[in-house]
């Protein structure tokens, strides 16, 4: 509903020839410059030339203690997807950046080995030579037979589009956390089982040994022990110790879920709930963990290897045994659940990033319209998670745009809060990177749950991405930081202009230029977060400090060198690093504007289009669209200031504007600007913002296409659509099921929802309709049959003709009331120039949004419905109402009925108690119907 119809023209969804089709000239502010290479048949959204895989995929790898990094499986499990992409090589890369200090052993001061409940680490890295960028999610699973009891795994979302990874980082993180949590839950279960078995064996071994010792004692009545006896006694003692240690381990692993349980509702079998745990996880104090502490070598490397019942003292070489598969490690059920989740992730993030972003933005804006959004939107997904995540693709925006965006950014959550409908949307972000130690120190809930966490946003910074330098380098573009440092409140987040050290700090250490085969760690936020924030900058474990090498092989050749201070700065102290990095940021932007690139990556399009007319940023359609939307309501500012109790923080607004302006002026001092942009443009929610959007998109596209066809084919489309909009059930009657269903799909985009349920659309009915059906369904596909049942159905149609409009798909007639308004004419112009289904869908949505806003105004204007004074006669209220509809809202004739019907739905929706569904009403009019023919 939000999106403007024609701005998202460049979505990669239909054939190429559509790309060549010229839309009528757009207003200047809407127009997107043409891609200069269009003549060569280049598609600005085509894959990066460098990437060797056809589309995004998910890779699961393991760092095997026997063979090193190895890929386990890909999703989708299709060799075509990864193509010539070297999975082994990439596995090596991604597994080599696991910074989590997974550690099991004897921590100092502890008698027994501790299991680390290691939080996952989330890293973004890029390999520009391969043209691959990845979100990498490291996790460790427990395996009694593995070294240190742990097996490091990682799941990576690999895409050729770096922006996608960066901008969807939070969503990816959330979704992968779910998958990881699911795996780990199953793993804990399996591990506990394994321990139990092991304990039984140890117990048995002890008994055996004990008996042997006793026998030896008896046999040996001399005063001293033989070496044999001493050996036996040692062995026994070792087993005893083993038992205690294993018991302790078992206790630890078992206590895990209960500890979690204290934090929140814990449903270990539901992958969905991983999010909850993640939420609380971010609240826990990560300070407890100190995994880098030099611990003793785990004794359990010496643990006797497992034999059926008796445990031998000698340990087997770890290379002798076969490691458990992932499936064995995690219990089949959880394994399949995880795979489902990963497939879901793959589906969710499929497609171009601009589409994902647009989607998220419209959802975020829709979310704010809690009063009206149910009418024409599928709000089921809105309810799932707070999708108030805003666009983050700020890199490509002009300064002004950022400026405005920042204000909206801050506005959006507030609006949500003020409507009181989605309080949870500002709840904590599940950033959990902390080490979770099974320490005496319980995770603290000190950070308020309601505060929105602000992760460090370094991974979003434009400059970081601009720093991709050499071909074979892997750059860790960002990792999520863990710990208390992350838990910045929402207010902090929305006040990013303060010259806080954090602003610069977020850049610190993230800057590395790398030579071939080096791994560049641009910024890491180690999971161990004892380090105070201000020292974080110095912490990042930069792997290499090699000087920047300009490599022509790389597809990207921005010119970070423009600022020579960069490289030097890295060797300097942190403070100077900060500054230099900031400068690099600016320099990067400049560098990109310089035309010395060979193969520009559209995904990296930070370059303003004005310069050379290259479209290298995803279209940002939400800007005009949003303005238009707001226009329907009292207005953008009015919405925040007047309508809603929560005032916009004006300081923030003006501040960020100032900052961004100043940053425009002097790039060298852009620290605060960038940080503000970064912090505001980041999402703070873990919302899987587009759950099910893939299916929705396809449906929309199809529906839009069908609707276009319908309005072109059927001259009486207007009264038919009017019937739907005014709440009169439309029955599509036909013999051919496919045709009827197609018509129903086409028309379904015009059907207002009656509540937060599914659309009141029934695609195919074969039995006679009943009055109850008209309450439930507003659009019905009905079979025309010659059977007696079919005759009955027809009879019912004529009997209930008062409630119905009947579209006969076979004879191409329509029986319905007359329509003389103008809204539908705009909605369904048969001469429309719109060609694409999804564009038309958006066109429809925008007009319906206008209608919704009118209905909203009409519904919530007190005096239109109730007398001002008690003595005021009903007639004057009625006349005022009609005047408002006609003059204020500019509605004519039947359009009034549309708005009245929508208003009625709004009322019902608003006054309806949340718990009860309420009785469905059927409203109808006594109006004559007419028969339309082609």
């Amino acid at each position, binding site marked *: 509903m939000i999106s403007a119809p024609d701005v998202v023209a460049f979505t990669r969804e239909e054939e190429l020839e559509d790309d060549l089709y010229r839309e009528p000239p757009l207003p200047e502010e809407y127009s997107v410059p043409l891609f200069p290479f269009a003549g060569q048949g280049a598609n600005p959204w085509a894959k990066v030339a460098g990437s060797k895989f056809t589309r995004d995929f998910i890779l699961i790898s393991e760092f095997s203690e026997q063979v090193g990094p190895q890929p386990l499986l890909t999703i989708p499990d299709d060799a075509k997807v990864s193509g010539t992409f070297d999975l082994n090589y990439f596995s090596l890369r991604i597994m080599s950046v696991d910074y989590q200090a997974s550690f099991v052993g004897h921590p100092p001061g502890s008698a027994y080995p501790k299991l680390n409940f290691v939080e996952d680490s989330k890293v973004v890295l890029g390999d520009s030579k391969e043209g691959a960028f990845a979100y990498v999610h490291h996790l460790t699973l427990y395996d009694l037979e593995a070294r240190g009891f742990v097996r490091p795994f990682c799941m990576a979302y690999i895409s050729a589009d770096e922006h996608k990874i960066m901008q969807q980082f939070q969503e990816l993180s959330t979704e992968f956390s779910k998958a990881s949590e699911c795996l780990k839950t199953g793993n804990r279960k399996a591990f506990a089982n394994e321990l139990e078995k092991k304990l039984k064996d140890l117990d048995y071994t002890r008994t055996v040994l004990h008996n042997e010792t006793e026998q030896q004692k008896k046999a040996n009545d001399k005063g001293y022990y033989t070496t044999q006896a001493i050996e036996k006694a040692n062995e026994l003692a070792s087993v005893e110790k083993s038992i205690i240690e294993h018991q302790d381990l078992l206790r630890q692993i078992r206590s895990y879920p209960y500890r979690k349980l204290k934090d929140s509702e814990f449903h270990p079998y539901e992958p969905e709930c991983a999010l909850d745990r993640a939420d609380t996880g971010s609240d826990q104090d990560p300070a407890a963990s100190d995994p880098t502490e030099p611990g003793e070598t785990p004794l359990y490397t010496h643990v006797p290897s497992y034999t059926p019942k008796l445990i031998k003292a000698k340990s087997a070489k770890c290379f002798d045994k076969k490691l458990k598969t992932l499936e064995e490690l995690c219990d089949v059920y959880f394994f399949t659940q995880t795979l489902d989740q990963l497939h879901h992730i793959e589906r969710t993030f499929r497609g171009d990033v601009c589409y994902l972003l647009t989607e998220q933005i419209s959802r975020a804006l829709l979310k704010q319209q809690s009063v009206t959004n149910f009418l024409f939107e599928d709000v089921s997904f809105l309810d799932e998670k707070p999708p108030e995540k805003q666009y983050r693709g700020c890199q490509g925006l002009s300064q002004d745009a950022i400026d405005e965006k920042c204000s909206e950014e801050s506005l959006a959550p507030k609006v949500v809060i003020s409507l*009181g409908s989605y309080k949870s949307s500002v709840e904590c972000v599940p950033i959990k990177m902390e080490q979770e130690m099974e320490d005496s120190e319980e995770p603290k809930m000190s950070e308020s749950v309601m505060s929105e966490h602000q992760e460090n946003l370094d991974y979003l910074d434009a400059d970081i991405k601009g720093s991709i330098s050499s071909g074979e380098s892997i750059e860790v573009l960002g990792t999520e930081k863990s710990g208390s440092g992350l838990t910045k409140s929402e207010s902090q987040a929305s006040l990013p202009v303060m010259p806080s050290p954090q602003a610069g700090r977020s850049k610190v250490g993230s800057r590395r230029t790398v030579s071939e085969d080096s791994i560049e760690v641009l910024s890491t936020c180690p999971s161990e977060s004892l380090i105070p924030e201000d020292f974080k900058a110095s912490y990042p474990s930069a792997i290499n400090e090699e000087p920047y090498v300009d490599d022509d092989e790389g597809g990207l050749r921005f010119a970070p060198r423009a600022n020579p201070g960069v490289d030097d700065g890295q060797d300097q102290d942190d403070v100077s690093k900060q500054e230099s990095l900031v400068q690099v940021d600016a320099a990067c932007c400049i560098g990109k504007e310089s035309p010395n690139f060979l193969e520009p990556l559209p995904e990296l399009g930070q370059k303003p289009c004005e310069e050379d007319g290259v479209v290298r940023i995803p279209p940002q359609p939400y800007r005009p669209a949003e303005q238009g939307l707001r226009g329907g309501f009292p207005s953008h500012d009015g919405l925040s200031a007047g309508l809603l109790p929560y005032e916009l923080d004006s300081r923030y607004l003006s501040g960020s504007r100032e900052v961004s302006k100043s940053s425009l002026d002097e790039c060298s001092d852009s620290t605060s600007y960038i940080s503000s942009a970064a912090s505001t443009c980041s999402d703070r929610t873990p919302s899987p913002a587009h759950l099910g959007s893939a299916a929705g998109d396809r449906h929309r596209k199809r529906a839009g296409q069908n609707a276009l066809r319908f309005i072109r084919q059927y001259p009486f489309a207007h009264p038919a659509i009017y019937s739907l909009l005014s709440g009169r059930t439309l029955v599509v009657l036909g013999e051919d099921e496919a045709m009827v269903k197609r018509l129903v799909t086409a028309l379904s985009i015009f059907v207002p929802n009656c509540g937060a349920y599914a659309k009141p659309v029934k695609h195919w009915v074969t039995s006679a309709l009943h009055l109850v059906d008209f*309450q439930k369904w507003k659009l019905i596909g009905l079979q025309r049959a010659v059977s007696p049942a079919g005759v009955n159905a027809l009879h019912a149609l004529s009997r209930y003709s008062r409630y119905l409009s009947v579209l006969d798909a076979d004879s191409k007639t329509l029986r319905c009331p*007359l329509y003389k308004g103008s809204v539908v*004419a705009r909605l369904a112009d048969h001469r429309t120039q719109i060609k694409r289904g999804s564009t038309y869908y958006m066109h429809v949505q925008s007009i319906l949004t206008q209608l919704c806003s009118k209905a909203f105004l009409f519904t919530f204007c007190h005096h*239109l419905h109730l007398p001002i004074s008690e003595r005021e006669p009903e007639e004057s209220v009625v006349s005022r109402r009609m005047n408002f509809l006609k003059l204020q809202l500019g509605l004519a004739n039947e359009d009034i009925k549309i708005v009245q019907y929508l208003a009625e739905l709004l009322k019902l929706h608003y006054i309806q108690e949340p718990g009860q569904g309420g009785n469905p009403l059927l409203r109808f009019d006594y109006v004559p119907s007419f*028969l339309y023919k082609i």
Partner: protein
Amino acid sequence: MLRWLIGGGREPQGLAEKSSVQTIGEEQIQNPYTELLVLKGHQDIVRFLVQIDDCRFASAGDDGIIFLWNAQTGEKLYELHGHTHKITAIAPFSSSDVTEETDLIITASADRTVIVWDCASGRQVQKVSCFHSTVKCLTVLQRLNVWLSGGSDLCVWNRKLDLLCKTSHLTDAGISALVELPKNCVAAAVGKELIIFRLSASNNGSEGWNILEVKRLVDHQDNISSIVSVNDLTFVTGSHIGELIVWDALDWTKQASECNFWDSSVHPDVQPEIKLSQSPHETSVQHLTSDEECVFAAVGKGIYVYNLQMKRVIACQRTAHDSTVLHLEKLPNRQLISCSEDGSVRIWELREKQQLPAESVPTGFFNMWGFGRANKQAHQAAKKMHENTPVYFLELVGDLIGHSSAVQMFLYFGELGLATCSADHLIILWKDGERESSLRSLTLFKKLAQSGDLQLRL
């Protein structure tokens, strides 16, 4: 857009035109019911609707379940289970005074039990199962604070369900209808007979009552199918073969001085009974209702208005419905609502035709009611005449189509709307859409004020 309207015109598939039933187009300006609520719950034919108070009503039917509904919201208040067979009679027993007694409903069922329910709590108060036959009618004598059950005999009960007295066995067929008459009397329709009973306090105790048969009236030629009390002086009965007799409520005669309609029976060719033509089924007096002036009779498919003062039918609609009219009710605003086996409910308005001479009315009346088996030509001629004659006529002002089967009964709730019950197991609440809309607005702004949300003003 009109250019597309090539074939614009009325719908071709007008089914209703085939019959002679008067129809009304889709434009029904006077029909206020533009919103409906379907109340689902019953699993069989819903036959009875009774009003409990201003906003509650009960429904009962062949599934033996009684539902209590809120007439405003359509909310289901209670579901009363207790009967194992279909409900045969239902009567509300409102509290007699302002004591703590709550409203009761009494239901009788084919399982030969009568249950008294508490409307406030939805609980069964008491169950009586000492009947030898199914109780077919229930009447509450509010004045005496007793209620009567009529089956094969007539029993008198007080509020606490003590059996006060009963008659001897009357008939196997049982009492089909009961009506309260002045002077502690009741009239019971037993087959063709009308039996008048009188309740009297027994001599030996204050609580004791005796019931005595006072008179038997055998004027009807066929089974009495309906009976209605017009006022303290008059009651009217109708029979299966279309006889309509107006009785004096005090001395139970049709020659009563107050009602000299029956005096006209001196003319040999004018029977006191009003005989209705057509086949017995077509002429059966299904239901009678009345206001102070007129008796409205549902006879076959038609509706007849009989004026008590003029002692003649002043208006009629011979085929008001496609099928038998089952229930009739007179609204305060000169409107009449009827429901029928054809599944429709129709709203009529009694209007006056000034220009026609009053004299022609009786002719038309008699022709219409026709004696004997008039042949077709005569019948049509009569019909033609009839069309010109009545002073009053019933104008169809609206119809409600919703049920898919016979509408058994309806209940008029004034501005709250109309509840109809049907053989399709549904109850439909018909409401004035405009009123409901403004009520919702009111609720909306109340809720806005409560929740502290912003109140928008013009």
